[in-house]
């Protein structure tokens, strides 16, 4: 069974575990905007990664978290791992 992790899934994880910055609407075209520019710091990204690991059972090593600079990068990483 192959599941696909979508940007909407990512949006829901972001808002759910790290809150929504005042300045953005998560429904906007945010895929390629960096987490920093969106208002999410490194702790927020760590929290998102932890929730993804638990919800999808995908292991995300420390280095990979460092590489997840945008929501789309996170989505792509997760889908690559799901396809493995």
């Amino acid at each position, binding site marked *: 069974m192959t599941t696909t992790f979508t940007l909407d899934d990512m949006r829901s994880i972001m808002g759910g575990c790290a809150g929504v910055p005042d300045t953005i609407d998560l429904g906007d075209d945010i895929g390629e905007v960096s987490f920093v520019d969106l208002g999410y*710091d*490194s*702790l927020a990204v*760590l*929290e998102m990664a*932890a929730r993804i690991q638990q919800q999808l059972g995908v292991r995300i090593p*420390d280095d990979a978290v460092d590489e997840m600079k945008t929501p789309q990068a996170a989505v792509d990483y997760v889908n690559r791992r799901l396809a493995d």
Partner: protein
Amino acid sequence: MNLTGTRPTARRRTRARPGARPAPRTRRGRRVVITGMGVTAPGGIGVKAFWDLLTAGRTATRAISLFDATGFRSRIAAECDFDPAAQGLSPQEIRRMDRAAQLGVVSAREALADSGLGAAEPPPERLGVTIGSAVGCTMGLEEEYVVLSDGGRNWLVDPAYGVPQLYGYMVPSTIATEIAWAGGAEGPVALISTGCTAGLDSIGHGYQLVKEGSADAVVAGATDAPISPITVACFDAIKATSPSNDDPEHASRPFDLDRNGFVLGEGCAILILEEREAALRRGARVYAEIVGFASRSNAYHMTGLKPDGREMAEAIRAAMRQAKLRPDDVDYINAHGSGTRQNDRHETAAFKSALGDRAYEVPVSSIKSMIGHSLGAIGSIEVAACALAIKHNVVPPTANLHTADPECDLDYVPLTAREQPVDVVLSVGSGFGGFQTAMLLARDQGDTGRRGDHHD
């Protein structure tokens, strides 16, 4: 190896100091000296064991034994081999007190005995208590939670299993209460909880109480016993602690290129602070004088640090101004040196910014390389180490420092303790919440640098 017997018989200065050091001679008002000390640290109980460990450069970090850490990211810690009964606590005291309070009371008793203060000296209403702790009685809170929630099963925890001391665990001020009782203090008592700078801030608070005349002596220090699952897990979550589980003895690597996080520790140090004139009148032995204390906040991030060390540098400058000392006067810097990538870079920059070229000459070391990072307690333990450095004219080393980091390019006293004249010491701390604190100790002017006889 104990280096105290081999120190030089005469003081020698390695560099010229223009004029006499003005600080202690011109400052007005009440002055504050350290006249007693008690330490419970990983690697040994008591001041002597503590200093032996530091001067030998031994590390006390190991696999966690206080609970089963299987499944945790970081499974190492610097633990105290602490048996409360063997340390003289009664069965009721042991039942009533969380481990942090136990460490505190044992160290307070050692410090009071060391100071030579008699009963009712000073009178109880003139004796204060200022204790730092970052996480208070978490260990007790967690142990009781596990029972009340039946292993985390029930949000609506079962009141039938509540122990009488449960509220005492929830309010960390209980630790200050226990220490006030141990010392018979009836003056101002406070628990200071500025996270990982609490141990410096609590001594700073006590220093101010004596200086302003609210107390004549203060039992000041800090204690933390955070090696319990919830605290280990919360640092796991932010990857702040070292995952070097295969090599615990070498896991705490401040300023080393291969450092990968701090190693959680536990412990306590308590100092007796006294108004200097009164201390001298009663013939007290003086370890050192506290000559400066200042704190600043970075207002930047709860855990993140900017690389420039700007606010820590400002705290150092403020403490130096207060002490009327110049960068050239500083003989040793006891660094926060937690061993996280960002911290060690941050404070290296702060030292350079505050002390200029002197930063490259003055020895800097982190005793967290040996006894780990005991959160709120470590600041007081480090001040104790600084006072001992002055007393013995020995700078403790940074253990495990083998590979230089180009971003950390100061003299960190790798591996081996160094004998040298130590008259003025700077100790700094940095903590979650953005707190940055600096404290300056100086050899008391009546002390000629000969070996004292505390704890000898």
